[in-house]
Structures are given as structure tokens and as C-alpha cells.
């Protein structure tokens, strides 16, 4: 995956967030404070305005810029979590202009580890972790089986979608939804949803460039 594809990934995600701003906010209204879509959209609009200045830098630097922008413009739980995710991811691929399957695995794993460390959520707590964890696991298995980036990512996204939907029956233990107790059951977690969208965008960025690739 090239740094231009990384840029495309971020652009696709920013567009998806804009489209789904209200949807994410409604999800958050049900079990949170009705701002997740607004937060993410504010952050990724900012990211879009920052991207041109780093578009030609290495992938580590691009992701670091994303991280810093999110940290200083999103706020809330998602700001620190996505900020940390990109920060760790950027460190994992520091200096690279292109990513192999193994690099991508390290990027994803480092991002997930960052989220876990910052947020202390466990699988089943009804958070973005429930999307991210199965996705990283699926990606790792596919890569271990020698599958190429695109199909590994396809499997990751399938797992992510299952993980996202699995949050519906969960009782929240972390984040604002946890204050609702039993009433959090029956609603899909907004962060798990945006997290699915970010992986889906990654997949789209990869497949869109399949022709122009090597």
C-alpha cells in the first residue's frame, strides 16, 4: 500500500464520515450524548485541510499528522482513542513509503494496542474495541495464510462488521453508554460503527487502486 493510497484511505473515510455524520450522532443519542458524528466529522475535516502539506511525506509522518490533528480537534473519548490509534500506528510504520502485508498488520495491531491501553476496555464492553479486535485477528490469520493485502483486508472488514453488529445486544461497560446500565442493550455502539467505516474505507482505498497497482 503506497502513501498515495493512504491519503485516499483518509479521503474516503472523511467522505464517509460526512455522509454518516447524522447516523453516527443518532446512534450516540440513543446511548450517549449525541455527538459522535459531529466529533468525527470535525476531526476529519481538519485532517483533510492538513493533508496537502504532508501528502508527499512518508506514511509514518502522514499518520502522525492525522493523530496530532485528531488529538487537538476532536476531543471526547473518540478524540483521544483515534488519536492514540493513529499515533501508535504511525510509530509502527515510521519512515515507510509503502506498506507490505506485514507492515499493515503491525500498523493495525499497534493501533489496537494503543486503544486498549488508553481506554482499558475489554472485548465485549461495547466499544470500538469490539470492531477492531476481530478485524485485526482476521487480518493476521489471512496474512499468516499468505493471502495478499486486499483479500486479507476483505476478511478483516467482514469480521469488523460482525463485531460492530455484535455490540447491539451487549451491555456497555465503558464509555458513556455504561451509565445506562441495562438500557444500553439493543443499540449499536457509535464508536464501533465509525471503526467499521474506517476499515471499510481502507478496503475501498485498496480495491479502488487495484488496477493502477503493481
Amino acid at each position, binding site marked *: 500500500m503506497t502513501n498515495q493510497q493512504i491519503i485516499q484511505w483518509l479521503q474516503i473515510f472523511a467522505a464517509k464520515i460526512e455522509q454518516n455524520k447524522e447516523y453516527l450522532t443518532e446512534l450516540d443519542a440513543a446511548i450517549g450524548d449525541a*455527538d459522535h458524528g*459531529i466529533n468525527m466529522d470535525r476531526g476529519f475535516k481538519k485532517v483533510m485541510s492538513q493533508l496537502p502539506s504532508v501528502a508527499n511525506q512518508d506514511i509514518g509522518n502522514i499518520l502522525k499528522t492525522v493523530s496530532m490533528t485528531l*488529538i487537538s480537534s476532536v*476531543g471526547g*473519548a473518540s478524540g*483521544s482513542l483515534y488519536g492514540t490509534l493513529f499515533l501508535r500506528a504511525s510509530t509502527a510504520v515510521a519512515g515507510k513509503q509503502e506498506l507490505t502485508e506485514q507492515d499493515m498488520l503491525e500498523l493495525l495491531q499497534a493501533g489496537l494496542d494503543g486503544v486498549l491501553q*488508553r481506554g482499558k476496555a475489554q472485548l465485549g464492553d461495547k466499544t470500538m474495541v469490539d470492531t477492531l479486535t476481530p478485524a485485526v485477528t482476521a487480518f493476521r490469520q489471512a496474512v499468516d495464510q499468505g493471502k495478499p493485502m486486499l483479500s486479507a483486508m476483505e476478511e478483516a472488514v467482514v469480521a469488523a462488521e460482525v463485531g460492530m453488529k455484535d455490540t447491539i445486544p451487549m451491555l456497555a461497560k465503558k464509555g*458513556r453508554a455504561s451509565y445506562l446500565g441495562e438500557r444500553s442493550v439493543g443499540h449499536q455502539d457509535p464508536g464501533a460503527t465509525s471503526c467499521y467505516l474506517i476499515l471499510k474505507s481502507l478496503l475501498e482505498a485498496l480495491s479502488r487502486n487495484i488496477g493502477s497497482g503493481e
Partner: protein
Amino acid sequence: MKKLINKPEDFVRESLEGMASAHSDLIKVHYDPAFVYRADAPIKDKVAIISGGGSGHEPMHAGFVGMGMLDAACPGEIFTSPTPDQMLEATKCVDGGAGIIYIVKNYSGDVMNFEMATELARSEGIRVLNILIDDDVAVKDSLYTQGRRGVGTTVLAEKICGAAAQQGYNLQQVADLCRRVNLNGRSMGLALTSCTVPAKGTPTFELGDGEIEMGIGIHGEPGRKRQVLKSADEMTEILMRSLLEDTAYSRILREWDEDKGEWVDMELIDPPLLPGSSVLAFVNSMGGTPLSELYLVYRKLAEICEQQGLQIVRNLIGPYITSLDMFGCSITLLKLDDEMIKLWDAPVKTPSLRWGI
């Protein structure tokens, strides 16, 4: 949505501009990143107190910046915790060399962003401690969960710790005091209506005519359960029962350990609220509920305290920690000791809390 606003995305900044222009004798505002700070900061050798959180809870926190209370406040977007760079800049701005206390409400967003700020400030050699407030008895379970939210006790902690810092307490003393205030404070709130976040434009939830949300936080999120709106006396009884029946609550909170130079988990347990205690009774409007109704709640609250052998020695009644335009109220009972009373009474001069000077 019927609000006096211009563009939703400008709301927080414009509100700060109004504050800056109205209270230039007390506070100054820095815009990018956004924070409000004492006009006379930094104060040499004084511990500085910083708080912050999402906007929409006005007057908290920016309205409490000034002599005897906060040195700085970091306002986030509406109901969205502020970002670490805001806190870091505020920290550098008000640092008087005696260390900084962050008073942080226990929401994942606030906690994580203040933790990041703590790490950043520490890496620049500034002594920062962050103390969590988690006083909301509506949230029951604490193990493996986010635990309780920080609500009404936050205002009281800011006043009491602000006075202590003003009087020369050192960093550890202020931190100990803040923890003590948190452990002795209990809150419970209810909503008669939802609130409307400007950027969203519609109410966060819909309530039927005779319905309320019981056990709410301060972000327009639904409460623990929906129930029937009864008389002011009955509603007050329900809130008070939740507070009085609350037994020793135990939780694990993460604080920075100065000696170890890392985060440590501390187990903290609330002392019980026994008959004979002196308390501060704080009846708070969620924004839309008028003062006259708060006095009805206070009336019943005082009656219940009397029956329970609790002595109300101080009180605070009004809209201090709000959820935009939400109708509803919360009650906070803070068990007081003589030191806290003395610090509560100490002079304070901020845009929204002022006495003794």
C-alpha cells in the same frame, strides 16, 4: 431548536468572547487552543487548579475562574471533552511553580484527554496531578466499568480546593483535600425534558408529557430509567433516598504517582453518610428549571435531612452545572468537616460565584 445562537459551530467561541468582554477584570480568554484563565495568572508559588470538560454546563467551568477558585478552565465543544493541547497550554500559562491540580470528571473522554495532558505536562517538567470526581450515585456497578460519573460535587471541589490553593496549601495537600471532597460528595439528578445540542438541532431524547428520566448525567444522555413525573415532594424523596441509601462505594481510580513516575490504580471507598453529619446541600438546576422550583426541592430536602439527623450547615441553590436548556435538577450532599467549611466560606471572586470580597 429555539436558541439565541449564530452558527452552531461558532457557539462555544462566541460565548467565550462574550465572557471575555464582560469579565475582563477577572478573566482572560485564549482562543487557539481555547482556555479561560485568571487575569492575574500565573501566581507565583501558588498551586494552580485547572478544570475543564465539554461546554454546555455553564457556568461550570469557565464561570468559576478567578480568585479563590479555578486558575484556568478548558472548554471543549458542547458535551465533548476538551483536547490535551488545550490543557497543556492552560497549564503552561497558569503554572506558578507550585504544581497543578487537574480536577477531572470521570467520563472516559475527559479522563483520557486529561491523562494525555498530564503526560505531556510531566514530559515538560511541570508537576501535574489529576484528581477524578465520581460522585453520581445513579451509576451502581463499578468493577470493570467506567464507574460513576462526575457531577455536582465537581463545583464544590473547585470552590473548596480553589480556596485551599489560595491559602497556600501545597500540591499534595490540595490533592488530598480534593480526593476527600470527592469521596464525601454524592449526587443524583433527574430530567423533565431533554436538551438540544445546537449542532444536532433536535432534542437528544423525547419524553412523554408525564415522564421523566431518573438518574441522569449532565450531557443530555438518558438516565438509568424512565418513570412517571410525580410531585416535587415525591421527586425529591426519590433523589434523596438514592443519596441516603448509598453505602460505601468502592472503585479503582487511576492517578499519577509522582514517586514512581507512572499511572497507578488506587482503590478508594466512600465514607458513609451517618446521622449527625454536617452537610452542604446543593440543589442544582439543569438549566431550564427556574429558581422557584429549586426552592420547593430544597424545602423537602431540608425536611428529610432533619428527619435523618443530617445538619445542613451550608447550601448552594441555582443553575451551576447545567445541561444546556434541560429542565430538571440534581441534588448533591457533601459531608463537611470544619476544614471544608472554612474553605467553603473563604472569599471567592469569579464571574458566577462570588462572596466575601
